[in-house]
């Protein structure tokens, strides 16, 4: 498009020359980015916002660390002692740690839709929807911002697990790959949450649905126990559950168990794309 600068009004009360000097940049619209650059630019913008919010208020980071710590400390330690879950040569708490990282990331992402509803009620979303941001780019930005938050949460769980003596890898490439896996999983679950938000439109309903689906998603995955221990029908559910692929990849990367990294990442990328498409298609409901 042709970006036409707003014409300065000749009759400025302050004297047009000095006003033009002081506000010269506000007279010329920025040059639009070309097509392919838009999505990464919007994703970066949303991730920067998320990081800035975390910098201003870390309380959420600390309070959210309590639950995964309890899972590792109480559930992990107890089941390590009673040896009820066969995990081969891997101590149970080691086996559990990647599952808890995935779980805490999912918990953050699955309630991300509440933020979208808050942003809608407060006008923030409305304003973003009037910017030159395609809805898919806006949703992708929000999804990856949820991923950034989840990665920071995951890092906290990694530290807790390391303090408990879990033998996690410290290979930077593997840790980086684990972060990518967490981002992809969170992108899917946050999009699922935004999709539900666009359907139910209220925080209360979304809270109810979020609470109703988080535990089934968690228990119907390989986060706590190997899939082979599950009954057949639950194994089928687990195969359709993106959390299982996230946990499988994290286990392979962080504690070196056999994993199907390519398939896991493929499923997570596909799930994230489907989630972004669905949430972007329904985002208009939140604008009305």
């Amino acid at each position, binding site marked *: *498009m042709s*970006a*036409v*600068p*707003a*014409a*300065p*009004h000749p*009759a*400025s*009360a*302050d004297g*047009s020359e000095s*006003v*033009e000097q*002081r*506000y*010269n*940049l*506000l*007279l*010329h*619209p*920025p*040059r*639009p*980015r070309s097509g392919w650059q838009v999505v990464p*630019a*919007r994703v*970066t*913008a949303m991730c*920067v*916002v998320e990081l*800035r*919010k975390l910098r*201003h*208020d870390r309380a959420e980071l600390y309070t959210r660390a309590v639950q995964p710590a309890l899972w590792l400390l109480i559930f992990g330690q107890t089941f390590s002692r009673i040896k009820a879950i066969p995990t081969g040569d891997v101590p149970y708490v080691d086996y559990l740690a990647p599952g808890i990282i995935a779980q805490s990331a999912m918990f953050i992402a699955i309630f991300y839709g509440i933020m979208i509803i808050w942003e809608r*009620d*407060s*006008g*923030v979303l*409305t*304003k*973003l*929807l*009037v*910017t*030159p*941001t*395609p809805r898919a780019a806006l949703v992708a930005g929000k999804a990856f911002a949820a991923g950034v938050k989840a990665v920071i949460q995951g890092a906290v769980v990694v530290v807790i697990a390391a303090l408990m003596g879990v033998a996690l890898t410290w290979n930077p490439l593997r840790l980086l790959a684990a972060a990518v896996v967490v981002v992809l999983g969170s992108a899917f679950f946050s999009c699922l949450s935004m999709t539900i938000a666009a359907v139910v439109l209220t925080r209360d309903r979304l809270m109810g649905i979020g609470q109703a689906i988080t535990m089934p998603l968690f228990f119907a995955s390989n986060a706590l126990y190997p899939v082979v221990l599950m009954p057949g029908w639950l194994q089928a559910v687990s195969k359709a559950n993106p959390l299982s692929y996230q946990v499988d990849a994290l286990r392979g990367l962080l504690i070196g168990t056999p994993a199907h990294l390519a398939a896991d990442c493929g499923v997570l990328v596909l799930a994230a794309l489907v989630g972004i498409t669905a949430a972007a298609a329904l985002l*208009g409901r939140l*604008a*009305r």
Partner: protein
Amino acid sequence: MSAEGGTGGVAAVRCTGLTYAFGRTRAVDGVDLRVEQGEVFGLLGPNGAGKTTTLRSITTLLPVPPGVIEIFGRDAARRKMAVRRLLGYVPQQLSADGALTGRENVDLFARVFDVPRRERHERVEQALAAVGLAGAADRLAATYSGGMVRLLELAQALVSAPRLLVLDEPTIGLDPIARGNVWERIAGIRAATGMTVLVTTHSMEEADQRCDRLALLHRGRVRALGTPGELKDGLVAHQGEGSPPPSLEDVFRHVAGGELDGPGDQREDQRGEFGDVRRTRRTASRVG
């Protein structure tokens, strides 16, 4: 009646037969409107008159068919992104993010409007200075007064050098001093940039004092259009000399006929009005 003004050339906003319905209720019912470049144009009317729906259609938030709305000659249905680059939008709700500082709030909008990194900082500073918030830029927006939040929202809208500033009830809930301050900033910005301002209000006094031209909306239709002086003169001509000087409220009562107070005003579906009132009260409550 037709609300086409028209002084030739490309209009800042042109609506032709704009109609929008929520369910069975037509919130906007055949609005024809032409806003000239550089003017402050007010959409005036009570809750549920169709002001916000008209504004949301103009800002591309609500889907409209091609050919109905043009912004500086660009079709709002076919060239959404191009239209959005011309807009600076301040919704009715207090839409600044309280978890970010003033500077970060403006920076977000610089990013989503593709302001390049090399000029982003300076542009954000200029936008903050233009609304008088440079000194409070590093405080969290949650600590701002209602008037300051409105000014911050203006800075967010200004940072992309829009040609059309769209303000939905910009002074709702503010005390008279903050109200005057917001309007003075809007006037100053308009003088410095020559931008067009489209504003909704249900304050007859503000519309009288601050707008170059007005459209009086009632039940989704434009009932009168002109400068405040023309509208009042029209009523004097109708009532005859010797009657007390009319206010805009008198004009409004005249053009709305008995529909303002009578039982006929109770519409079957009150969705638009209810939504308006809820939004208004929420904003007023946040402003304090």
